[in-house]
Each structure stands twice: as C-alpha cells, then as structure tokens.
C-alpha cells in the first residue's frame, strides 16, 4: 500500500512538473525518436506496450521470461532456473496468454500455453504486449493478452557479425552468434544460440528438517540450443520474408522440496521446428499481407519412477491473410482471416486428433478531427465448422488537450477461447463436451508523453480494467482418482496498471527510468455447486507488483539497476496459506570498446544482488545471488 501511494504521488508530480514547464518554455518536438515503452496513439483505444530496446540488448543471453518479469506488469510463474515459466496477465491463467511470433500464435495446441523460459532473448528484435481486448487485433483466445515477439529486417547495406559468450554461476555457459548480411533490397540474418547450466544453486531449506539448513538444488540441469534464419527481400512495393527456427531443450525437472526423489528423476525434451513465409504488398492506400507457417513441436516427458514415458508431437499449419485500407484520410478498414490446423499425435490421446480453427476479423476505425477516434471490431471464430457466438471489440480514444500527447481511452470487448486439445482429449480425463471460455473486458486508460525540457522526456499511463471470464475451464480431481476439466467457474479480475518512463539524454549521458505497477484483484464469482469463496484472491496472483529500473549510460560505460517487488501470493483457494512478498534487485554494468570496425562489449550481470531467499511457486526454491560475465564482439563491414 505504501508503494502504491508513493507511486501515485510520483506520477502526479510528473504531470504537475510538466505543466509548470510548459508555462515557462515552448515545447519542441525532439528530432530523435526514442523507442519507449508506450506506443501510445499507435494503439488507438487499446493498451499496447513495448519493451525498450536497451532492455532487449542487456538481456541478450537471457530469455523472454526475464524480459517480461523485470520490465512489465505481467506476472511470471516460474519453477526456477531451467524450469518452466508461464505468464499471468491481469490475474488470468497461463492458457489465457497467447505467445505470438510475428503475429502468428505459437502456443502449444495441446497445452494452450507456452514456456517463455525457452525463448532466447537474443532472437528477438522487439517484444510487444497486447492487453485484454487489444489482443483481438492479432488473434482470438488471448483473454488476458498476447505477447508478440518480433524479428525485423535492418535495411542497411553491409554485414555484421556478433559473437556473444557468457559464463556464470551454477556452471552456466551460454553464447550467441548473429550474422547479418545484406544490401538495400536483401537481408539475411542468421542466429545460433546455446545454453547449458547445472543450476545447482545453494538455498535455505526451511521445510525438510525442523531446523533450517543450507541445501543445494539438484536435478535442475538444462541444455538448450537454437538456430534461426531470416531472409528478407524488398521490392518496389513489397516485402517478402522467410524464417525458420529450430530449437531443442533437454532439461531435468527438479522436484518440490517436499518431494524426495528416489531413483531416476523426471526430465523433459522440448523440440520444435518452425517455418514462416510472409508476403506484404502495399499499393496506394491498401496494404496486403499473406503468411503461411508450419510448426512441428515435440514435447516428451519422462518419469522413470512412475513409469511415465509421455511422447507428444504436434503439427500446426497456419495460413493468414488480410487487407488494410484507408479509403479516406479519416477511416481505416481492416479485415483478416486466420486459419489454424492442428494435428496431434500423443500417447495420451486415444488416436490422432485434428482440429481446424478459423478466425475472421473485420474492423473499422474512424478519426473525428484531431481530437477523437473510434474503433469497432467483429471477430467470428469457426471451430471445426461450428460457428461460435461472434466476439466484438469497440473503443474510443480522445485527445483532450491540443498540442499535447495526452490520450483518454475507453474500450470494451468480448473475447473467446476454444478449449485446448488436452482439455478435450487427454486420456484419462479429457472432456469433449467443454464449452469455449469467453470474457467481457472493459478498460479505461490515460496516457501521456512529452518533454519536460529538451533533454528530459517522459511518458506515463494509468489503466483501470475489469475482466469477467465466463465458463472458465478448470481441471479438478474426479470420481476415478484422475483429474478432469469442466466449465465450472466464472472469474472476475479487475485492477489498476500504472507506468512511468523518463529519459534524460545529452551527448555523453543517458539516463532512462521506467517503472510499472500492477494492482490485481482476481477472484471466483461462481464455482460449480460449491462456490462460496468469492472474497478470496485467486492462487498465485499477486495483488501488488512493481518493477522499477534505472539505466545510466555515460560515454562508453553503462549500468542498470532493476528492482522487482512481488506481493504476497496465496497458494490455497481459501487464502489460508501464502508466499511472502519479495523484492529482488539486479545490477548490470559494462563498457563498450570500439576500434575501427571492431567493437567489444564487456558486461557483468548480477541477479538477486542481495541474495534474497524466495519462491515463486511454493516449495520450489529460486537462486540466490548469481553472476553472469559476458563478452560481445561486433564486427561491422
């Protein structure tokens, strides 16, 4: 609460400071475009944020989970180093977040979620987060939101070689090579990545004996390798691209502290091969876009003690096409079709399962002068030839003050999500009679950005939302000692999100400050025949979350300090048990040395600098203080 009050005071003080400044000085538009965290008017009436490019570069050898957890209000549920990590948007479950690669859904069709700890950060050129109804502009099913990871061409003539090698605590060795070669109308980008770690970190064990003692994590080894190739071809009015992405991750799965693993231990293999071809053509006021993607995903889980050899293989073919037109200066029309065909072969299904989900989305946006705009979107899902009730989204954005980039936004959406194939066909327990989940989301937000003075820019936003999810699918134990899903709950999540970004920039000094706060209230409003827990917060949804970072760059030296506060998380539905709140601090420092066409970047990263003993999931310890030392060599020709 203390943090919330101070945070609101800070945001208010920024606005006030800006007003004083505007009286004294004329605000001039800065020539330099700073890639901030807020895309503001580009998102119309919806909330859409990005991750600062400096954040991506400092996490080059990390993964998407680290980027999201340290720089956004999205909560990451992680089983620790090397373990799976899933997202929780605004109190929703992991299955309500979609992970998209250049706009194409890459969630597992079986699980309906993605393990974002397996996405190498160095493979990403941009990360954009679509909150609530904003996700419908990309695809259906993101009841919480969509994280879109993007790879983009850099239309520069010449070549670029980048070799990044790192070594750190817990026998962590990692590296990445990037090669870019291109001319004005052709670009080739090749990336290769490896990562291995023992993850045998020391932690305070408070549950295995009556007296706490220092223990060492075991069976948490991870070995990962990945390869990505991108080719871009630019015509007079078109861009054609082709991408492939192969990745293999073998890891042992450490057990809960309360589970004493006897004999051989659990392990998992995640392997995928993804391809994507995209053609984009712009002619006059029309923009055509077509893409075809094919993904092959393998997920094998082994538990020798329980004699489980779970082998699962899915193939996904996604065709997507759309047209965007601006018939008048004030009207924008957009229509696109997305067709996703899934084929899954699993030892956990009785036979091969096929599913085809088509989505047709049409939207119109109209500007009313310079001060307002409105948008309406209709989305129709066809699930295996069955028409679902159409979804919709609508919003209004208002620019209340002339010459100021202040925006007031309202939107309301209905969004649907079809059950996952595991929900339908898992043997035992799958329920083929499940209904689709759907949500009603309302959102009000205030965004602003500008200059307090010439070297100091700011942007900020405050969002209030309410999300009501109907027919929530939940797995629960059934009569026959196995779990089964059913549409048993209605869940309401509501809350507040606030963000503040400031950049102070001179020729030799750059200071970037960013902070996000999320207040999340999430509870069940109906649960089968026995629902009477309406006043209880959903498990593993922190009510308070705050991330703050300051990044300073002076000449060739740079440093970052990132603080993440995660509030109390309840671990039982009646809220009788919980995990303490925790504050983690990370520090990054480095220097860039340039010599002609060669440059070096020497970097030291210290995570959890104060060695806080904490857990994100109960009885799964997280690492204490850890180091990663890396050297990056760049050659530009």
């Amino acid at each position: 609460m203390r943090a919330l009050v101070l945070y609101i005071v800070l945001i208010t003080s920024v606005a006030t400071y800006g007003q004083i400044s505007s009286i004294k000085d004329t605000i001039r538009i800065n020539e330099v475009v700073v890639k901030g965290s807020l895309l503001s008017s580009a998102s119309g009436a919806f909330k859409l944020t990005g991750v600062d490019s400096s954040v991506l570069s400092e996490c080059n050898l990390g993964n998407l989970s680290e980027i999201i957890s340290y720089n956004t209000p999205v909560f990451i549920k992680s089983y620790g180093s090397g373990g799976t990590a899933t997202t929780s948007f605004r109190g929703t479950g992991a299955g309500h977040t979609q992970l998209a690669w250049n706009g194409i859904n890459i969630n597992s069709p079986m699980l309906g979620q993605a393990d974002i700890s397996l996405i190498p950060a160095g493979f990403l050129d941009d990360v954009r987060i679509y909150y609530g109804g904003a996700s419908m502009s990309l695809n259906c099913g993101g009841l919480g939101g969509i994280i879109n990871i993007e790879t983009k061409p850099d239309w520069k003539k010449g070549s670029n070689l980048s070799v990044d090698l790192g070594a750190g605590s817990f026998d962590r060795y990692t590296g990445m090579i990037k090669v870019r070669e291109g001319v004005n109308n052709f670009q080739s980008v090749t990336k290769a990545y490896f990562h291995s770690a023992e993850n045998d970190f020391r932690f305070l064990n408070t549950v295995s004996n009556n007296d706490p003692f220092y223990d060492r994590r075991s069976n948490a080894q991870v070995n990962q390798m990945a390869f990505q190739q991108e080719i871009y071809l630019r015509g007079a009015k078109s861009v054609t691209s082709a991408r492939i992405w192969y990745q293999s991750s073998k890891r042992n799965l450490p057990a809960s502290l309360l589970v004493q693993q006897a004999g051989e231990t659990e392990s998992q293999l995640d392997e995928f091969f993804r391809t994507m071809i995209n053609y984009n053509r712009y002619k006059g006021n029309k923009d055509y876009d077509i893409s075809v993607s094919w993904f092959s995903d393998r997920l094998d889980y082994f538990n020798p003690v329980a004699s489980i050899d779970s082998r699962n293989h899915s193939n996904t073919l996604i065709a997507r096409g759309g047209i965007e037109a601006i018939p008048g200066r004030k009207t924008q029309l957009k229509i696109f079709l997305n067709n996703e065909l899934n084929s899954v072969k699993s030892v956990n299904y009785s036979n091969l399962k096929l599913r085809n989900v088509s989505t047709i989305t049409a939207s119109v946006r109209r500007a009313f002068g310079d001060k307002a705009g409105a948008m309406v979107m209709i989305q129709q899902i066809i699930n295996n030839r069955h028409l679902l009730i159409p979804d919709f989204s609508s919003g209004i954005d208002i620019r209340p003050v002339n010459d100021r980039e202040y925006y007031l936004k309202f939107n309301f959406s209905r969004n649907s999500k079809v059950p996952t194939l595991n929900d339908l066909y898992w043997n035992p327990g799958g329920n083929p009679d499940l209904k689709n989940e759907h949500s009603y989301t309302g959102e009000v937000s205030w965004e602003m950005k500008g200059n307090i003075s010439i070297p100091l820019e700011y942007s900020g936003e405050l969002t209030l939302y309410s999300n009501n999810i109907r027919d929530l699918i939940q797995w629960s134990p059934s009569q026959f000692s196995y779990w089964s899903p059913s549409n048993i709950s209605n869940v309401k999540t509501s809350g507040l999100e606030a963000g503040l970004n400031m950049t102070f920039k001179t020729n030799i000094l750059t200071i970037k400050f960013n902070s996000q706060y999320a207040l999340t209230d999430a509870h069940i409003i109906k649960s089968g025949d026995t629902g009477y827990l309406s006043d209880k917060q959903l498990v593993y949804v922190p009510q308070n979350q705050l991330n703050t970072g300051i990044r300073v760059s002076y000449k060739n030296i740079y440093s970052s300090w990132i603080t993440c506060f995660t509030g109390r998380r309840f671990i039982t539905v009646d809220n009788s048990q919980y995990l303490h709140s925790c504050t983690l601090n990370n520090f990054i420092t480095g220097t860039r040395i340039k010599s002609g066409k060669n440059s070096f970047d020497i970097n030291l990263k210290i995570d959890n600098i104060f060695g806080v003993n904490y857990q994100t999931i109960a009885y799964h310890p997280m690492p204490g203080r850890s180091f990663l030392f890396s050297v990056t060599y760049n050659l530009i020709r």
Partner: protein
Amino acid sequence: MKQFFFILFCSVSILVCSCAKNDSGPVINDTTRLYLNGKGVFVLNEGNFSAGNGSLSFYSYDSSKLYNNVFYNVNSRPLGDVPNSMIISGNRAYIVVNNSGKIEVVDKNTICSLKTISGLVSPRNILLINTDKAYVSSLYSGKVTILNLQTDSISGYIDIRRSSEAMLLKGEKAYISCWSSGKEIMIINTKTDKVIDSVEVGNEPESMVLDKTNRLWVLCSGDYMGQFDRELVAINTTTYEIDKRLVFSSKNYSPSSLQINKTGDTIYYIDRDIWRMDISSSSLPVQSLIPASGRLYYKMGVDPVRGEIFVTNAVDYQQRGYVLRFMVNGSLIDSSRADIIPGSFCFKQN
C-alpha cells in the same frame, strides 16, 4: 542537472519503498492449540498433488473439536506432499507421505518429529506386523518395503512385481491388494517376508476388511474407463477361494473405502452415498445409509471401539474439506472444517 536529480529521486524513492521482508517459504495461518493427549482421531489432509499443502488434523473426543495443522504447529515445517496413511505403534506414530516419498515418525502424544524415513517410492499405506516390523505399500515400485521399527529404518523389500495398496494382517499372513491396474491379492508370510500365494479378485482392489468369520472382504473399484465391473468380493482365508462376489450395477462411479464395524458383522463403503451391508447379505444394499446430499464423500473410517462413523467431504478438492461424524444409524453427530482433501483416519485410543 535539476532533471537529472529528479530522475534519481524517482528511482531511489521507488527502490526504497519497494523494500519488503523477504522470507521464502509459504505461510500457514493457524492459531489453534493442541489437544493431543486424549483419545481422538487423526485426519490426514492430502492436499493437492505436488502443491505441498498436505497436513494433519486431530479430532479430540474430549472437546469434540477438530484441530488443524497439528504437524506444522509443532514442528514448524509442513508435513509434506499427499500424506496418505498413519498408524500408531506404542508411543510412536508413523505418517506415510506419498508424494514426498517418506515416513514421518512422531511422538503420538505431542506429534514432535522423531525421525524421517526417506527413500521410499510412492509409499501408500503402512501395516503393523509386530512391534519390530511394518510393511509399506507402494504405488509405483512393485515392491513392499519392510520397516524395522526398532531403528525406524528400511530393512528390506518384498518383490511382488505389482503396485500395492491396502494391507491387512491375519495371524502370520499379510494380505496385500494390487490396486493400480491390478486384480490380485498377494499373500505374504510375515515371518519369512515371502509371497506364498495370490488370489485373483476384481479389477483394482482398493480396500479390504476382515469379518468375524475370518472372511477377507475386498472392494474392487473398477477402472476409470468404465470397462470393468465394480465388485465386492469375499475370500475364504483358509482355502483362498472366493466365497462371495457381488457386482455393482453401475460403472459410473468408483466405490471405495471399505470399512467394518467393531463386531465384524457389518461393512460400510462409499459409492457416492454411504452404504451399509450385513456380511450375511446375498446382494448389495439398495438403500443407502447416508445420502451424499451435495457432499463429496472421499474417505471413511469406523472407530474400532466406539463404532462411530467418520467420513470426509472433499467439497471440490480445492478448498478446505469437512470431517463428518455419524452415529452407527447414520445420524450426524457433528461436522468440522478440516484442511484440503481430508482423507484417511487413524484412531488414537489412549
């Protein structure tokens, strides 16, 4: 420069205000006092699989109250993941914690931890053979573990090559049911710890009782696919022949938790409702003793001295469940809020 300090002020303010106490482990709210010295019933709350929220409750006959989180309150650490069964031997109690692969040895009157026996593969139930020896069944290993109760350590294994679940002692023979994907009752000589015979019953024998005529009653819960019959089978423990086989009319549910009264002439089981049957009956009862009435009956126990019937209501397997206490005629005595998925009972007679 003023702006520079302004940014620094913002940063430091937020970094400072976000400081909070950092403790790692989960916190379990409970302020109850312990009343363990009298007679009562231990209740093993299984908790959710892999969530580590299993716990121990104690129903005191003296106060007619249920006390939760007994193990945690005494030992300041959680009991483990899916506590499944418990026995008392002398002044010691043995709590089998299934997914933690361990047995907690505690003082029966204080629940103070005395020792933790680890290294077990998915242990399920524990059977007291004598004051020196106990058997522990296993869901996955195919072996029954032998415990030395003098040293509280594993002294050996009996390879039955099958999953093991319920166990029952009669004289020098132990009867062990092969529940998961099994259909046998293994018979073991407790002096030699060797398998001496086996009897094929119905699919997935889940629980067993011995009646006053020395017949072994076995409740077979069928299978989740609904392919096999659910059966109640009586075995002659002298000839090992099946004396009676009663087949349930429906495969929609999975009968469980077979119990017997203190005189050994009436058996009870859960099949959505609570059912009672005289051992001389030639057919299954058609009228339940205690209807479910919206409750989700999970496990049952019958006090071997007082005869009262204890039943757990798991509610939705997620929120805290209830322990219901009934008289022999099925009338409710009281109901108490336990913890998540209250399961097996262990009766403490002194």
